[in-house]
């Protein structure tokens, strides 16, 4: 009848106590298991989404902080120079970078590609002409699109401001365009004010010609719309896709020349305006693709002194904060629940075990009076608690996980509804240059409570750790037991 046998018999024969201890451990175990499940799920979402978002940064003028008082003189604003853009681009954290400039041009011969029933852009046959510096095209390097015919630009074409173009397969198909064909676009200069019939008159115009060297295909993941409540999002996404498919990539020099012409012609037509009112310098939005998401922080600190006043770094990681707000709040909530329930478990289980031990004072005194080593008496108590705990913990591995699914479904749903409305209001505030098509819905989809070995091991670790901690108090009690006082 050694201490192990005694422990086993004690658990089996004193069913009432075993059941009480089991119930306590099971309830607390469910809390802990649920919290860990949610934690793990939120962490894996963070990883998935952050990889999806990538590690892209841009440097922007920070209107909010510059104009805090509302008295900032924007004519004194310093611009990001090409030199500064290049210096920042030479940072070790940068994989590659581009700075582009955009013109909106129309065409008499090339027709916009539109999704069948979309009459959104009714009448306006305008194209976003994107002048770039990075010859392999950042969008393609980042997997937003890929060349399906022809080729990307070469550095010489970019450096020499050649009239080369890459267009989308959809646009090519619609206009029956092929590699080697040329397209004619018009740069239109509008009047400064609306005319009497409510239209902006075109005051000047000139043509420019682009030769197609490559055709790209959009590669952004096409998602099935399985839910009706996604309608609104779909319209927004469709609009963005359409814009992208009507984008024409060319060298930055071409766009700069057109923009120069525009502002000069505008100044000529409006002699009362000075050059200061119509900035002539190209306003570039640099895009820096970093080597890895971990580089974001170093990048931010490294370039602090390279940026002009009032400029800030925006990264796709910032985007994560707004997209994943529901996940973040769940992660926070679950870590609170985890901490509180571990502390509660240690205290409550400790107290329950202590109460039971006081009840068994006599029995423990008997063992000690018979010359049993204190370590073995302790061992028996630990064993009893462990047997019950392992049963309780093992059952709560599954039930806690199951519970977490239910709880996070409800939480996520209510949180997503809340933030989607917010998100729509604020989406214009995010950096346009870093726009991603990763949405709160993607986050919700990526969120999955899993029952994997990681979770099981972590839970057993934390659970058993808490049990051992909680038996520390009773341990002191046993060490201090005086058999003479108890027995005689």
């Amino acid at each position, binding site marked *: *009848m*050694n*201490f192990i*046998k*005694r422990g086993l*018999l*004690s658990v089996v*024969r*004193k069913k009432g106590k075993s059941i009480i201890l089991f119930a306590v451990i099971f309830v607390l175990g469910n809390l802990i298991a649920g919290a860990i499940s949610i934690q793990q799920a939120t962490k894996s979402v963070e990883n998935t989404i952050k990889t999806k978002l990538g590690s892209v940064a841009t440097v922007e003028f920070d209107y909010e902080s510059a104009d805090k008082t509302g008295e900032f003189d924007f004519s004194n604003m310093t611009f990001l120079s090409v030199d500064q853009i290049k210096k920042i681009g030479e940072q070790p954290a940068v994989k590659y970078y581009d700075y582009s400039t955009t013109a909106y041009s129309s065409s008499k011969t090339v027709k916009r590609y539109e999704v069948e029933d979309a009459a959104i852009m009714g009448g306006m046959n305008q194209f976003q002409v994107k002048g770039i510096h990075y010859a392999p095209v950042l969008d393609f390097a980042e997997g937003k699109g890929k060349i399906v015919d022809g080729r990307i630009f070469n550095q010489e074409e970019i450096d020499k401001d050649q009239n080369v173009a890459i267009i989308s397969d959809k646009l090519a198909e619609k206009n029956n365009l092929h590699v080697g064909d040329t397209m004619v676009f018009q740069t239109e200069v509008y009047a400064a004010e609306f005319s009497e019939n409510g239209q902006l008159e075109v005051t000047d115009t000139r043509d420019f010609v682009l030769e197609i060297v490559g055709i790209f295909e959009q590669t952004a993941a096409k998602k099935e719309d399985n839910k009706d409540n996604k309608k609104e999002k779909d319209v927004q996404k469709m609009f963005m896709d359409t814009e992208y498919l009507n984008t024409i990539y060319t060298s930055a020099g071409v766009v700069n020349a057109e923009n120069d012409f525009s502002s000069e012609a505008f100044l000529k037509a409006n002699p009362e305006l000075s050059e200061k009112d119509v900035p002539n310098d190209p306003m570039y939005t640099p895009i820096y693709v970093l080597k890895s998401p971990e580089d974001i922080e170093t990048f931010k600190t490294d370039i602090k002194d390279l940026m002009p006043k009032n400029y800030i770094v925006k990264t796709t990681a910032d985007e994560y904060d707004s997209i994943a707000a529901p996940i973040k709040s769940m992660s926070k909530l679950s870590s609170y629940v985890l901490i509180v329930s571990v502390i509660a478990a240690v205290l409550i289980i400790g107290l329950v075990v202590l109460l039971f031990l006081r009840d068994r004072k*006599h*029995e423990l*005194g*008997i*063992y000690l*009076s*018979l*010359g*049993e*080593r204190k370590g073995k008496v302790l061992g028996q108590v630990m064993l009893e608690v462990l047997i019950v705990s392992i049963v309780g913990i093992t059952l709560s591995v599954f039930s806690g996980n199951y519970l977490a699914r239910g709880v996070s479904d409800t939480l996520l749903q209510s949180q997503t509804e809340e933030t989607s409305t917010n998100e729509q209001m604020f989406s214009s505030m995010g950096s346009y240059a870093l726009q991603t098509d990763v949405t709160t819905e993607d986050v919700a989809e990526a969120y999955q409570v899993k029952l994997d070995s990681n979770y099981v091991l972590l839970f057993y670790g934390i659970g058993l750790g808490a049990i051992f901690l909680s038996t520390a108090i009773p341990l002191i009690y046993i060490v201090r037991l005086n*058999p*003479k006082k108890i*027995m*005689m």
Partner: protein
Amino acid sequence: MAILETKNVNYYYQDGDQRRYILKDTSVSFEKGKFYTILGQSGSGKTTFLSLISALDQPKEGEILYNNENIKQIGYEKYRRNDIGIIFQSYNLVPYLTAVENVLVPMSITDNSLPTDVKTVAYNLLDYIGLGKSKADRLVTMLSGGEQQRVAIARALATNVEIILADEPTGNLDEEMEQEIVTIFKKLAHEHDKCVIVVTHSNEIAQQSDQTFYLSKGSLVPHE
């Protein structure tokens, strides 16, 4: 030759800054094959004395020798485990174990070599003390007081020790049962060569013992 001996043992309780002596310079010795009783008024210190020779407490001064070795040297826990068996007034059995399981407890604790078939030994012991197989397999909470004390005696004997110590073992039993238990003690001393030391209030029991000590004012004096 003495198996158990106390040499100038002092014991006191600290009462404020006063020492209240319970035992003063106590030197007695006990031999194998004898049944001893210790008498004394309530509060005279009988239980205290027993707790010292059973190593549940330590003397403030002096030493207790087992086979001429100080039990402090042997180690109190080890001494309790291997050299003595104790019987208490309130039987002190493990409530969720059966009678035979209670007897098996010290057998798993002791370092003494025991027959391999400990279970048979335990059943035989209980049978010898007067508890048949059906009662031996009962939870001890379902036995009468007398039966429970028999289990306690069997437990004290289970580790094959030479010294049996008992503190008022029949205090909760009727006279008939008391006599049966005393008979067992006599048999243990005389037929099995044990040294049996029993603290009691009963003169009848004392009269049946080989030697009685009277505890009074801190000293143990042999009676008659």
